[in-house]
């Protein structure tokens, strides 16, 4: 099948490096354009909400960031598992590259969640089920980063990280469920960040555009980071020195 052949074609770190170099500029531009469009629509086009005023507009960053944080965790676990199961070098490098970006989005989601909560609830933090789950997700990311960093042997670090990420993925739904349970049980009526206002079409478009912008950004950053990891791990390989010479020429 042509598609699977092409997939494995780029499984070599060398070829991926070239691919990433070619695509990077376009990805950065795409991310910038989409983000600008999303912010414009979100801040200028979307209507003011009846109950929350203009404070709600932070959700145009908060919700996409939260989505990204969760999706990236799963992507990280998936690539790490592939790298482990198939002994694929590049897949493991991908997973390592995704982790910091995923953690960043988690942090962004928490930060913007706090910014949202402040005008609405009067405090910087509420133990809302979603926010609390995001916080625990941040712990999972930090745990992964700490583990792979602490193990000196690259291969062992990749594998241990893969196992941890897979275990984490299995736990994420359990954790989310238990936090929701905890939240409703203890408060009677659940404490939630104000539920998102009824969505006008422009709001949906803004969130969608921001999500796509984040995707493009994530690709760009992960590609760059993977290139750095490839350069470091394959530093003795012949193809790397030639490429570097061409780049600086």
């Amino acid at each position, binding site marked *: 099948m042509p598609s699977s052949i092409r997939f494995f074609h780029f499984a070599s770190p060398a070829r991926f490096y070239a691919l990433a170099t070619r695509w990077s500029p376009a990805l950065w531009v795409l991310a910038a354009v989409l983000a600008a469009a999303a912010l414009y629509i979100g801040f200028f086009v979307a209507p003011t909400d009846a109950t929350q005023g203009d404070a709600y507009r932070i959700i145009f960053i908060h919700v996409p960031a939260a989505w990204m944080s969760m999706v990236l965790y799963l992507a990280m676990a998936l690539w790490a598992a592939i790298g482990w199961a198939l002994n694929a070098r590049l897949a493991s490098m991908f997973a390592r590259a995704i982790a910091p970006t995923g953690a960043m989005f988690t942090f962004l989601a928490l930060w913007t969640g706090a910014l949202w909560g402040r005008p609405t609830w009067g405090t910087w933090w509420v133990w809302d089920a979603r926010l609390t789950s995001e916080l625990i997700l941040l712990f999972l990311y930090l745990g992964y980063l700490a583990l792979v960093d602490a193990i*000196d*042997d*690259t*291969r062992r670090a990749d594998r241990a990280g893969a196992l941890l990420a897979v275990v984490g993925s299995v736990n994420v739904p359990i954790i989310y469920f238990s936090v929701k349970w905890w939240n409703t049980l203890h408060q009677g009526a659940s404490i939630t960040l104000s539920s998102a206002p009824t969505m006008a079409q422009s709001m949906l478009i803004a969130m969608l555009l921001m999500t796509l912008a984040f995707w493009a950004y994530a690709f760009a950053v992960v590609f760059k980071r993977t290139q750095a990891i490839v350069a470091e791990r394959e530093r003795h390989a012949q193809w790397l020195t030639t490429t570097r010479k061409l780049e600086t020429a």
Partner: protein
Amino acid sequence: MATTSHGDLDAGARASRTLTVDGLAGRRGERILFHDFDLFVAPGELVWLRAANGYGKTTLLRILAGLALPEAGTIRWSPASGPATVYLAHANALKDDLTVLESVRYQSTLHGLEASEAAIADAIRRFGLQSRRHAPIRTLSQGQRRRVALTRLCLSDPQSTWLLDEPWDALDAEGVALVSTLLDEHAARRGNALFTSHVPPAIDGLRTVQFDALPAPA
């Protein structure tokens, strides 16, 4: 004469498995320590794996024992199934708080050796630890601890392949002679062994494999 729970077996009926190693490559961490390594060990053969420090002898033994996967190459045992290998690492695998007797019993049960109390007592006696059999391991000297670890050789299946990492380490002259005798007996009943040692062993009919004569990786 070694007495084991297996009794006296007809030496010709059972023999150790033959080990064939083909193009083996081994790594530790990031480094490939050796590659293109071939080895053939027939029943009754005692092979001395000889190399300077850091060439990967321990890694090789671990791979052959099954603790680690090789980077490349194949390992074939014929017949495919048979008595498990006896791997004695450089470390003794003894717990400080157990007595000699408890340690030997634990080893025996863990590896399914089903050694009788009499066989265990014999092994302890043979290694000269009779008087210390109720002493905790932490009160023993390095040499005595090594002896405790080596008792496994008396209790294992006579046809198992022995993979020994520095078996003579820390032993006094008597201990050294004892291990050499055990190896001779092992070969006589068609068992085979692969071991490392920094001191040339005093064993007849030894086959030496010079490990560090391998070409450096490209």
